[in-house]
């Protein structure tokens, strides 16, 4: 057993720190996964992603031939932590391409697809931005229930249907799309396939869905006789479900380290805020309730850190962390929720102020997080679904539904 990271990771951490201090505006100190909403945020994200690509960090885990630098799992973890800590935007370009389309193409795409799509993602250019078409009006947690159809027609497939809650569809050049190719399969998850779809294709309509605070993260996407080349099928036809389960594990794993980085920074900021802020005639930090809340959150943050370490270690041992990824995501979500609520408590009356107004504290990060976390804990699988995964695959309990 050993709880120390290596020298290589230390060097990378320092390099990212240096980069962040130079390139990232000081009001960014937490990774808010809403950069696709406001134009100015998106612009900063895209200009940063290009710089990250030039540094060789954007897709550091990928092999050199596809634009990566074959970084170790530990380096990836440190990168995630630091990006979360500094709030470096653009690290995921709307998340899909960098976090799971690329890794999935490497796992079960063909060589032609890899050559065509991976270097574009790796470049950090707008043409490397992806969205993911999974959820539908009748297929949320019950994802295998999707009804969007792809029907073979010569060398092409014709796609019809509707996706919903599609994050970043309004910024994306490509869609990583799950469809039904065999509606008559004996089990509903046996008839699913994955396609790469050009978002500029005729027949695609993207309608914004604003969240309760007017933030534009997700969309509904309609497919009306959209024709895609048969060469855009990824992996085997009707095997999409199995591909996606692996893909989702990558997705969930990628979130943990960045979440931890954000949480650690938030705690530091809240500690400083509590020291600098007077309440009832004395510094907020002298209030035992405040001290205890922050101490408890720090204990959970440390647990999240170690969960990430453990999952990363499993990856180095050749284990796919199906359980660990779900654990880290569900645990991280709960922690983010807790910290947002603590942060809002510490802000007192200022917690109700619009995050972009001149009255806001800590650059509005706390309010934005508070408004965002309910969405984060739903995206990529609700906490309840994650707990089902853990119950079944780790505790060996019978399926609950």
């Amino acid at each position, binding site marked *: *057993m*050993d*709880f*120390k*990271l*290596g020298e290589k990771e230390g060097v990378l951490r320092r390099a990212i720190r240096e980069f962040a201090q130079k390139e990232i505006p000081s009001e960014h100190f937490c990774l808010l996964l809403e950069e696709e909403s406001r134009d100015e945020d998106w612009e900063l994200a895209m200009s940063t992603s290009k710089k990250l690509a030039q540094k060789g960090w954007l897709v550091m885990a990928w092999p050199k031939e596809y634009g990566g630098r074959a970084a170790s799992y*530990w380096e990836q973890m440190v990168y995630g932590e630091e990006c979360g800590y500094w709030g470096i935007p653009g690290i995921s370009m709307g998340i899909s391409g960098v976090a799971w389309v690329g890794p999935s193409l490497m796992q079960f795409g063909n060589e032609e697809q890899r050559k065509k799509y991976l270097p574009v993602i790796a470049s950090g250019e707008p043409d490397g931005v992806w969205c993911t078409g999974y959820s539908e009006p009748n297929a949320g947690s019950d994802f295998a229930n999707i009804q969007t159809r792809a029907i073979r027609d010569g060398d092409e497939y014709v796609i019809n249907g509707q996706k919903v809650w599609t994050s970043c569809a309004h910024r994306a050049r490509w869609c990583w799309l799950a469809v039904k190719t065999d509606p008559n399969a004996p089990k509903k998850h046996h008839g699913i396939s994955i396609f790469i779809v050009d978002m500029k294709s005729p027949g695609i309509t993207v309608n914004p869905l604003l969240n309760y605070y007017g933030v534009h993260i997700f969309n509904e996407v309609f497919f009306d006789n959209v024709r895609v080349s048969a060469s855009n099928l990824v992996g085997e036809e009707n095997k999409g479900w199995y591909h996606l389960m692996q893909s989702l594990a990558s997705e969930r794993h990628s979130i943990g380290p960045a979440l931890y980085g954000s949480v650690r920074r938030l*705690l530091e900021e809240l*500690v400083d805020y*509590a*020291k600098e802020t007077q309440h009832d005639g004395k510094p907020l*930090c002298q209030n*035992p309730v*405040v*001290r*205890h809340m*922050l*101490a*408890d959150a*720090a*204990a*959970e943050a*440390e*647990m999240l850190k*170690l*969960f990430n*370490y*453990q999952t*990363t*270690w*499993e990856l180095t041992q050749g284990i796919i962390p199906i359980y660990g990824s779900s*654990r880290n995501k*569900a*645990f991280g979500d709960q922690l983010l929720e807790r910290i947002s609520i603590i942060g809002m408590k510490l802000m007192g009356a200022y917690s109700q102020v619009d995050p972009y107004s001149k009255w806001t504290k800590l650059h509005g990060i706390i309010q934005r997080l508070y408004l965002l976390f309910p969405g984060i804990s739903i995206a990529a699988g609700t906490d*309840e679904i994650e*707990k*089902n995964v*853990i*119950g079944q695959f*780790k*505790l*060996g*309990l*019978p*399926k*609950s*539904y």
Partner: protein
Amino acid sequence: MDFKLSEDQEMLRSLARDFLTKECPKAKVRELEADEKGYDPQMWERMAGLGWLGLVFPENYGGTGATFLDLVLLMEEIGRNILPGPFFSTATCALPILEYGDEELKAKFLPQIAKGAAIWTLALIETLGGYEASEIRTSARIGDGQYVIEGTKLFVPNANIASHLLIAAQTGEGDKGITMFIVDAHSLGVEVEVIPTIAEDKQCQVTFTKVKVPEGNVLGNVGGGWDIVEFILDRAAILKCAEVCGGCQAVVEMTNAYAKDRVQFDKPIGSFQAIQHRLVDMFVNVEGLQYLVYQAAWEISVGSPSKLHISLVKAKASEVYQQACLDAIRIHGATGFTKEHDVGLYFRRVKASEFAMGDTDLWRERVAVELGL
């Protein structure tokens, strides 16, 4: 970074698990709860034979030179099985002797401990029940080359069977006024009374009436006692958390097994999300606690203890243990509420483990200080 135990550690763990399962089944635990001594001298001898009592001592003191992390792994198994007796109390005294004792003290006391011939306990807290230097009122006055100790200590584990006491007494004012003494438990003027506790774990009140202690029995420096207390608290807190963590694991495992086995509405109750998600939360928190314990223990083992990491664990452990036990009882239904069921044995130990070496609030406050608050 490596989450794997060494082969030796795996072996220690599996030997410990086998030994405890065989030698200390729950019937034995119940028997020892009712027993006046609260431990089994024969088992204690066999534990000495296995090298457990001197695990971290160098070989020249009769030990096996294992690391603190190894000791933590052993405590985890002890917690998992429940082992009534003075293992923890003896370890909490042996560690400071090893660190602060001069050659003479070490040669005198450590080999005795290793071979099972001495039982030690730490007499620290008093009627206020807290872990602050200011709460130590027991006094030690010097005269004629010896100290005379007066005062009362509370919640001293296993003092009823101890051969030696390590006690914190006032020799001056403030933090620098505390000195640690080694006291023969059979000295004239030492009186021990077992406090009935819900864990039936033989914590005692120890009264010192004009107890004479030779000058040579000072551990460390006169006035330097509180540093030793801090040294003990950090390490003993982690040992206690390891014990808690083992207990948590046992509770989660028995509950998971029950949830698969127990059928209601024609299905195992573990298939219901209300049960399943509760179990998942228990499991994840316990796993997180385990990593917190290992990290802090590893840092101590390699000589770079982290105040923050130690404090986090002790602030968290009892909360996790309490919740795990409550959830376990809930999932077991009325069965979990009975004297016959094992889960109650664990639940009755939650508070004892919280108050050993400082409660949740004390360690939370230490976390807050480490965070810069």
